[in-house]
């Protein structure tokens, strides 16, 4: 019986360690707490009980030698018939009142449909929200602190995240101003005058699933999205050149006002951000 004595010792040790660890937990808590020590003590306090119980079962209890018969799952045909009869008898009584059955069904159905209406209260209608941002003609571009941006400050290779003045933080309006330097801008047809003094503006929302397109590589004129590595060619209308994004970043038409600030000439010409089924609607 040496094994059983040894087994008992191990079980006792496990429970004992648990008691000590729990006491330790209380002390650590009173002393101000410490996540790593709490974790270690919890490991011992809970693990001691767990190990003790499992060892106990394995060493001293009958394991794996009990046999039980399975009762067949299907009922006998007779039982089934009686259940069916019970239901059928009741159903017959109900079905006799045919008009009432129909009216009850109509009442429940109407209630069900009426109950769907509050779902509409959950949110605004998409309406035009996905098609417009806060940019308007004449609105100045401000940086994250709300300061209007001077065109002269966007030197070659500079990138600034801007918002329409008065709407700092508006998620759908976040725009990147990129300084291309003189003579580098190669406009898409019809956008010849959208990048005054080599400052070009693109929506910062990735057209894939909407992460902010944060990384700019001035040497290659590429914008990278950190989420799924789409790359956009800034010189070619922010056309996607790699990764899962399927559409260019919309371009914000820009101009420079008399005081030298960057100003929008209007909203983006198309919806910004990820696609949706009727994006082509106008």
């Amino acid at each position, binding site marked *: 019986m040496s094994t059983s004595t040894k087994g008992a010792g191990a079980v006792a040790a496990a429970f004992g360690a648990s008691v000590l660890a729990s006491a330790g937990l209380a002390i650590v*808590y009173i002393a*101000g*707490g410490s*996540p*790593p020590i*709490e*974790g*270690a*003590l*919890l*490991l011992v306090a*809970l*693990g001691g009980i*767990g190990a003790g*119980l*499992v060892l*106990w*079962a*394995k060493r001293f209890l009958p*394991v*794996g*030698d*009990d*046999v*039980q*018969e*399975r009762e067949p*799952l299907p009922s006998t045909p007779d039982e089934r018939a009686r259940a069916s009869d019970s239901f059928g008898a009741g159903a017959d009584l109900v079905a006799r009142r045919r008009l009432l059955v129909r009216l009850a069904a109509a009442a429940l159905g109407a209630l069900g449909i009426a109950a769907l209406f509050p779902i*509409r209260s*959950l*949110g*605004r*209608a998409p309406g035009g*929200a996905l098609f417009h941002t806060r940019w308007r003609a004449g609105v100045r571009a401000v940086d994250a602190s709300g300061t209007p941006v001077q065109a002269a400050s966007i030197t070659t290779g500079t990138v600034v995240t801007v918002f329409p003045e008065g709407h700092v*933080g508006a*998620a759908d309006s976040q725009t990147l101003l990129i300084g291309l330097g003189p003579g580098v801008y190669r406009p898409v047809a019809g956008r010849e005058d959208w990048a005054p003094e080599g400052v070009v503006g693109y929506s*910062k929302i990735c057209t*894939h*699933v*909407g*992460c*902010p397109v*944060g990384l700019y590589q001035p040497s290659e004129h590429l914008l990278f999205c*950190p*989420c799924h*590595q*789409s790359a956009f060619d800034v010189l070619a209308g922010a056309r*996607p050149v*790699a*990764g*899962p*994004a*399927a559409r260019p970043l919309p371009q914000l038409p820009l101009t420079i006002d008399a005081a030298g600030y960057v100003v929008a000439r209007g909203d983006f010409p198309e919806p910004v951000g*990820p*696609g*949706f*089924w*009727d994006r*082509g*609607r106008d």
Partner: protein
Amino acid sequence: MTDAARGGARGSRSERERAGVSLPGREEPPFQDRIGAWLDERLHLSRFARQALDKVFPDHWSFMFGEIALYSFVVLVLTGVFLAFFFEPSLTPTTYEGPYEPLRGLEMSDAYASTLRLSFEVRAGLVMRQTHHWAALVFIGSIVVHLCRVFFTGAFRRPREINWVIGVTMLLLALLNGFTGYSLPDDLLSGTGLRIMYSVILSVPLLGPWAAFLLFGGEFPAEQILGRLFVLHIFLVPVILGALLGAHLALVWHQKHTQFPEPGHTEANVVGSRLWPTYALKSVGLFFLVAAVLTGLGGLVQINPVWLYGPFDPSQVTSPAQPDWYLGWLEGALRLFPNWEIRAFGFEIPEPFFPAVLVPGITFAVLYAWPFLERLMTKDQAEHHLLDRPRDRPVRTAFGAGTLTFYASLFAAASNDLVAHWFELDIETVTWFFRVLVLVLPPAVALLTFLVCRALRDAGDVRLTHLPLSSVWRPRARSTHR
């Protein structure tokens, strides 16, 4: 719960008459019998108690994963209640004044600030928070392994199709609750996850914009979403999960557990340990072991250090951004799927629809349908309580192995940027490598698995000839017990 009717004589005659139960007489009934009698007089429990205590559960290491999932859920509920006492699901802006220096003075939401408070100021709060997160990872992990066990051993076959469907639903809800929970702290990483979720919903043809606006309350980032996620995360989904868990266990109880074919095991019996005391001690012990590992991880191994990410700002993103492991397959699919968009008649199906809606949609459709699909293929209508050895079902095992390889490849592809970085490769090259891998590796693994299983199955027969005793004995044992 105890059994008043079992064991020695107890109760005086008059007591018996009063109780209306026939208890054999004895002067001083032990404590558990008095409790038992009290309950039995009110609930008629004895017969059930006796059956329950004597119920036999088969032993096999692979049957533990479902239990691990169950106990992780218990840990999730216990730690989650604690967290809910402190967390404020609100996007109201506030200025951080707490003890964590790098963020002091920063503007952030109440949600993020209360998560920081929970982490740095509430005593034992960080251990609870980290244990909760670890428990979520282990919960979903053990569900997936449990599902694989059930799949590869054919435990989903008649009569257990209902439990398979319940189980798949629980996996779906567990994924959902993992995502909603991970989104609550309103840190930079979780905000990015929400942004992606919004865009994925938006991509659904016809329904997308309305669905996204109704769920979020408006265009991203809408104020309402956080409170809604909170209600989903701490109430609706856990309650449904709990109810399904109850149904899942009740069905296991009612139908009795499956067992592997071994000498003495038949379709008509269950061989194992009784609930009381062996199984009870082992299973309760397992609960404590699971809790020990989860709390140990929660205290010792940092997870989701939201204070490092900073508060959510829709124009910022952390790089590299990766979700919790259980969403890695979707992340990989998003990274690999080529930039195809279908445009016709002024309408379009946006690119994310394919990897992020269709792939999970098909995944769960096949999961739900599997028991019925397999029955169509094999024409096997019979009831099964003995499990398959995976090698004896080369086709199913090959399909499962191929499928797992597919998701594992997608999972690996979620790190394409890291792979590119480590091996100093071009990201395009790595993406193409994974695209090929995702399409080529699964069929290759499936084929290999099929061949190996078939050989093993046949070799198994050969090996049985070396053990003539058991090979003669086994079929006879089956037929006599039927």
